C-alpha cells in the first residue's frame, strides 16, 4: 500500500503529510514543556526566600553545551540544504557533525549528572548547613546510608560557599562549585547529622525541577539522534530510489531537532543563570 502525500502536496494544506504531522506533534511538545515551565515558575516564586539554590551548576559547561546544540542546529539545516542542492556527500558530512554534537551534549550532561550525584549537602543538628564532597566521592548517599554502613563519622570537604548565604559579586570565584574549590577536609560525627543528601531530585524542589526538565530534554536529544542516525545510515538508501521523499524525511527530523535546540535555549538561562 502506498502512503499518500509523502512527496506530493495535499490540495487542502498545500503540504506533504509528514510536515503537518510533525508540526502537530511539536505543538503537543510545546504544551508538554510549557506545563513544566509553568510548574517551575510556580515553584520558584513560591519558594521561601533562601531555599532556592543558586550557583550549583557549572556555567562554562552549560554554555559550551548550548554552543554544541546551536552548532548541531546549523548542521541539520545545512544537511537539508545540501540535499535540496543534490549534494548527498555534504549531507552525510553535516549530519555526521550533528550526531557528534548530539553525542557530545549527552556525554557532557552525563558528567554533569555524575558530579551532582557525588555532591552533598549536610544538615547538622545545630541548624548549620554545608555543601561539599564526602571522602571517596560515594554516589547517592542519604541519611539512612550512614546508619546502614554503621559510620560514626564522615570526612567531608566543604565548599567555600553555601547557596543560602548572600552571594559574593559574580565572577569573584565564590559562586558555588565553579569557584574556589574546597576547604580542608573536616570530620563530622554522624550523631551531629540530621540530614544528608546528594544533589538528587529528593534533595530539593530545585533539583527535582532540574532533573525532570533536563532529563526529559536529554531523552529528546537521544530520540532525535537515533532518528538522525538511522537516516544517516541504513535509512539513506531511500535517497537512491526516492530522493524527494528522503529529503522530506530529513526536513521533518530537522524540525524536531530545532525544537529540541529551542527548548534548551530557554532551559539554559532558567536553570543555570536565574
Amino acid at each position, binding site marked *: 500500500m502506498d502512503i499518500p502525500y509523502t512527496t506530493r502536496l495535499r490540495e487542502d494544506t*498545500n503540504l506533504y503529510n509528514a510536515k503537518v504531522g510533525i508540526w502537530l506533534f511539536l505543538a503537543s511538545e510545546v*504544551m508538554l514543556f510549557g506545563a513544566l515551565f509553568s510548574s517551575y515558575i510556580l515553584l520558584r516564586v513560591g519558594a521561601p526566600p533562601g531555599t532556592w539554590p543558586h550557583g550549583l551548576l557549572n*556555567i562554562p559547561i552549560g554554555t559550551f553545551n548550548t554552543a554544541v546544540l546551536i552548532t548541531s*542546529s546549523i548542521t541539520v539545516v545545512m544537511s537539508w540544504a545540501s540535499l535540496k542542492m543534490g549534494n548527498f556527500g555534504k549531507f552525510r558530512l553535516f549530519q555526521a557533525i550533528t550526531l557528534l554534537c548530539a553525542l557530545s551534549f549527552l556525554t557532557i550532561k552525563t558528567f554533569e549528572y555524575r558530579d551532582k550525584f557525588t555532591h552533598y549537602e549536610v544538615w547538622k543538628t545545630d541548624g548549620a548547613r554545608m555543601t561539599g564532597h564526602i571522602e571517596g566521592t560515594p554516589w547517592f548517599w542519604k541519611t539512612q546510608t550512614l546508619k546502614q554502613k554503621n559510620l560514626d563519622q564522615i570526612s567531608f570537604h566543604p565548599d567555600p560557599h553555601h547557596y*543560602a548565604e548572600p552571594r559574593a559579586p559574580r565572577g569573584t570565584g565564590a559562586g558555588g562549585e565553579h569557584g574556589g574549590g574546597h576547604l580542608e577536609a573536616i570530620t563530622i560525627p554522624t550523631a551531629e547529622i540530621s540530614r544528608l543528601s546528594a544533589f538528587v531530585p529528593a534533595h530539593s524542589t530545585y533539583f527535582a525541577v532540574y532533573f525532570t526538565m533536563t532529563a526529559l530534554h536529554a531523552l529528546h536529544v537521544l530520540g532525535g539522534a537515533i532518528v538522525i542516525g538511522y537516516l544517516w545510515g541504513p535509512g539513506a538508501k531511500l535517497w537512491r530510489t526516492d530522493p524527494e521523499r528522503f529529503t522530506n524525511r530529513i526536513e521533518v527530523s530537522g524540525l524536531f531537532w530545532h525544537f529540541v535546540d*529551542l527548548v534548551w*535555549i530557554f532551559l539554559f538561562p532558567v536553570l543555570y543563570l536565574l
Partner: protein
Amino acid sequence: MDDPHDDSQHIARHVKVYLTVFIALLIGTVLTVAMYYQHFESVAVTVAIAVFIATVKASLVAGFFMHLVSERKAIYAILVFTVFFFTGLMALTIWSMHDNPDMTESLQRAPRAAAPAAQHVP
C-alpha cells in the same frame, strides 16, 4: 513540487542567512552569560533580560532554521492554536500566583537578606 524551498538557487541564497543566524545565536548565548556576571539590583530586570534574549534566539531558530518566516497557512493555523493555549497556560500560572495568599505573602517578603540564613560551617 510546488514548494517555496524547492529551488536550489533559492536554497543556496539561504545558506548565507543560516550562517548569519548561527553567528547571531552564538552572540546571543555570550550575551546571556555576560548578563549573569553583570550585577543588576533588580531580579525582575535580570529575568526580563534573560527571557528577552532567549526569546530572540528562539525566534531566530523558529523563523529561519524551521522556515516559519515563509511557511504555509496550515502551519500557521496550527501555531495560532498552540500560541493561544500556551499563552493561556502561562496566564493561568501568573494569575494563580497572585490568587494564592501564601504565595502573595512570599512574593512580598524581603528578598534574600531577610531569609532565615543557613549557617555555614567552614
